[in-house]
């Protein structure tokens, strides 16, 4: 009798295991079967208007959850295409995934994050070339000459300041709110300023490269060295400084303007300043070669470039649209007033290794 009792829990556990695994498996199968069923009936309706194309679209989205939810709703309403998305942490994560899955692509399109991540994917032959007819309405710098990626929004670098700490500690010393990159060299910021590391953060690198483009090689490095005296530490990610400044650990820092606005909207006492000669990233979208619904992915890109979508995304994400006829995000200056530095993307990519190396030596951990 005792023997049986002892065996019971073990058997029970094993049984549960097998059962639960089986449940997972069948659950999924039945779902996909159901999905296919509904797909067929639905596609029959749309067949009249289209060729044999599917009515689905699978999106890897390196965007905020709320943004992609709204995009899904609107895209489905506008086109009748059934969109499924997987939200990923960032463009690095998305492109790593796309590359890992290249033998059997799981998604049709990747959207969001800097085009710097799309470039190498295109070169590796993982992206499908496509130039949307709507791209003609957009400034050339947002269109990939090779056709692998399409820019659809723009983020700019900004300065984040904790107003409370600034008023308490820096205003009494006669400091005014910083307006330019050069204002940050003031020695009063020593130990109170955060930036991100070019070796690990895309934004951190764009910032460093901006200074080199803006001031030239020699002066640029002098600037970075001067700022280094004020920087408490360089964070691993570009957005990491924001929360540390929002909670008052540090007084000021450098990060993406739209991310700063986002945190400010949460109720933190922070303010964003977009200085002159700032740098920008182009937010991209790219079609994954070998996806099941490539035609729909093309439609998605056409749709992304419309004015209506541009306006919606600007409102949601606080980022500029690539369309000049879309108003700037709330709380930010008009795009025409943003003075962008003359940023040479090709050169920036080429010199990255050297810049990172010199930078590492400069901060000499």
């Amino acid at each position, binding site marked *: 009798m005792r023997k049986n009792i002892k065996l019971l829990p073990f058997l029970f556990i094993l049984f549960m295991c097998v059962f639960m695994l089986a449940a997972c*498996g069948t659950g999924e199968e039945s779902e996909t079967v159901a999905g296919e069923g509904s797909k067929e009936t639905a596609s029959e309706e749309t067949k009249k208007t289209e060729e044999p194309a599917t009515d689905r679209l699978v999106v890897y989205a390196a965007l905020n959850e709320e943004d992609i939810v709204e995009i899904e709703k609107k895209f489905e309403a506008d086109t009748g295409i059934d969109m499924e998305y997987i939200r990923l942490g960032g463009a690095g994560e998305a492109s790593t995934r796309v590359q890992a899955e290249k033998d059997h692509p799981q998604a049709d399109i990747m959207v969001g994050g800097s085009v710097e991540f799309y470039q190498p994917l295109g070169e590796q032959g993982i992206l499908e070339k496509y130039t949307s007819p709507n791209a003609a309405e957009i400034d050339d710098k947002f269109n990939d000459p090779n056709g692998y990626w399409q820019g659809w929004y723009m983020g700019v670098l900004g300065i984040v300041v904790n107003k409370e700490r600034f008023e308490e500690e820096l205003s009494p010393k006669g400091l005014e709110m910083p307006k330019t990159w050069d204002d940050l060299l003031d020695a009063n910021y020593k130990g109170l300023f955060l930036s991100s590391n070019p070796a690990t953060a895309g934004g951190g690198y764009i910032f460093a490269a901006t200074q080199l483009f803006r001031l030239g090689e020699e002066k640029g490095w002098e600037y970075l060295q001067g700022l280094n005296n004020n920087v408490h530490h360089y964070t691993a990610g570009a*957005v990491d400084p924001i929360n540390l400044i929002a909670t008052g650990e540090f007084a000021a820092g450098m990060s993406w303007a739209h991310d700063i606005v986002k945190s400010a909207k949460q*109720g933190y006492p922070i303010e964003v300043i977009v200085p002159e000669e700032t740098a920008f990233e182009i937010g991209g979208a790219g079609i994954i070669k070998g996806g099941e619904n490539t035609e729909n992915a093309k439609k998605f890109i056409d749709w992304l470039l419309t004015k209506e979508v541009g306006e919606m995304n600007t409102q949601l994400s606080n980022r500029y649209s690539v369309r000049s006829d879309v108003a700037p995000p709330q709380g930010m200056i008009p795009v025409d007033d943003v003075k962008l530095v003359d940023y040479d993307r090709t050169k920036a990519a080429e010199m990255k290794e050297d810049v990172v190396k010199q930078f590492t030596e400069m901060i000499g951990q």
Partner: protein
Amino acid sequence: MTTTILKIVTRNLLFYLTFGLLLLIISTFVIWPILKVVSFAQLENFSELFTNSRWSQAAIHSLMMTMISTLSCTFVAFIFAYTIARLEIPCKGLFKFITILPIVSPPFIVGMSYILLFGRQGIISKQLLNLNVDVYGWHGLWLVQTITFFPYAYAVIYGVLKKSSPSQEYAAYNMGSTHWQVFKNIVLPLSKPGIAGGALIAAMSILADFGNPMVIGGNSTVLSTEAYMQMIGWFDLSSAAILSTTLLIPALGLFLLNRQWVGKQSYTTVTGKESYSSHYPIPSYIKWTLFSFCMFITVIVLLVYGVLFYGAFTTTWGYNWSLTFSNLDYVFSKGKELTNSIQFAVLSSILAGVLAFPLAFIVQRKKMGMNRFLDFLSVLPGAVPGVFLGLGFAIAFNAEPLMLTGTAMIMVIALTIWNVPTFYSTLLAGLQQISSSLEEASQNLGANNLKTFRHILLPLLKGPFISGMVVTFLRSVTCLSVIVFIYSAKTSVGTVSILGLVSNGEWGKASSFTVVLISIAFAVLGISQLFFRNKRNANDY
């Protein structure tokens, strides 16, 4: 005659079948994915490790941090284990809780809680004590890593201390030994498998951790953070692969050192002979010193998780501390993610046990040529950063014959494999204590392998088994790194939502999500504990 030969043949056949099966599983789900990622590294780039000063710095920091944190982790873990297992003190339940709470370490939020408390403007460091401390750097990281990872070492050490019989200690006391002599010559040496196993698992977890160094490390970087950022931040798979592969070298070193240290001595104290039920009393000044030490750590842990808990119900996390419940709204729209988290964690902790049990048994009991290799493979997944393992899974199982992408199966298997080392170390330490004479006796009495395994080993290993299960379950619930490249729309889990909220700057919602996730996890633990309790009462009779 022929029947005995037949018996031996079938017995061995069963054994070799199990052995072969294990080897197959381990090679498929450990070696293959790891090889897939390693193959991204271009060989000529390895020299960069020496020329790239950032990387060589990172390597040195990694080694340093692993070394000092492992020492402190093991020290803290031993004191906790000794105090809880041996002393008659109040608050035992609380201390036990503290030894599992830090295992629940959701991405980034715990690190930020430390900063809120001990940062430059920290509630404790600045507002309470008015100190001018700077947590960012190796010393701050050391504190955080010690508290985050001592529970891993504790789980192994406690199992060993609890099981060891005090008869040898009594003998020593009777012959006039002092407390110190008994401790130094008997308690400590006999705990060696536990200390070694615990230290190894703590060391590997510290080596592979990237989250805490990212938040607390300041300007000093470690290899795993660097690998993570190369992958996530720059999409440089070659560099990430080089850095991660480099991590395997210290991991191998730690492993060899560890196995060398434990050696071939006997640590058996569970022999089936009669045993004393209570331990020899310890002088009260020692008792209360140990108690205070545990209390000190307990207070720190409670503060950190208290801030996390409180933050979940505040208007603006870390700034406006007025209470609100609005953060919870979001959580309830994510029921599927929460269910997935719990379901995958339960399955993977059970499966990890099912896998770790025979592995530990074969390695410890059957002296075979392949043992060292199997032994190493069982701890290997703990030494590579979770993202690295996850990426390997994404690449390796996205093609026939094992097309698993997007399924719940790949999530469960990845978590299982990631959990095997912890579970395995706990069981191995437990097995080293149990004298094989018990099994021999059972076999002499006519029981076969299976019967012996079931009726002798299984009941004796129940303690390590349960603690292994608890640790792996909690780890899985709060795991992000392993699954970040393999979740799909249907199999997304709670930590993915947390990461999304954190990167969106919504720390309040992120911590309320975390609090709900942790609460559900502990509720599940509580219920299963009740279940096991009842079973044990029925059995122990």
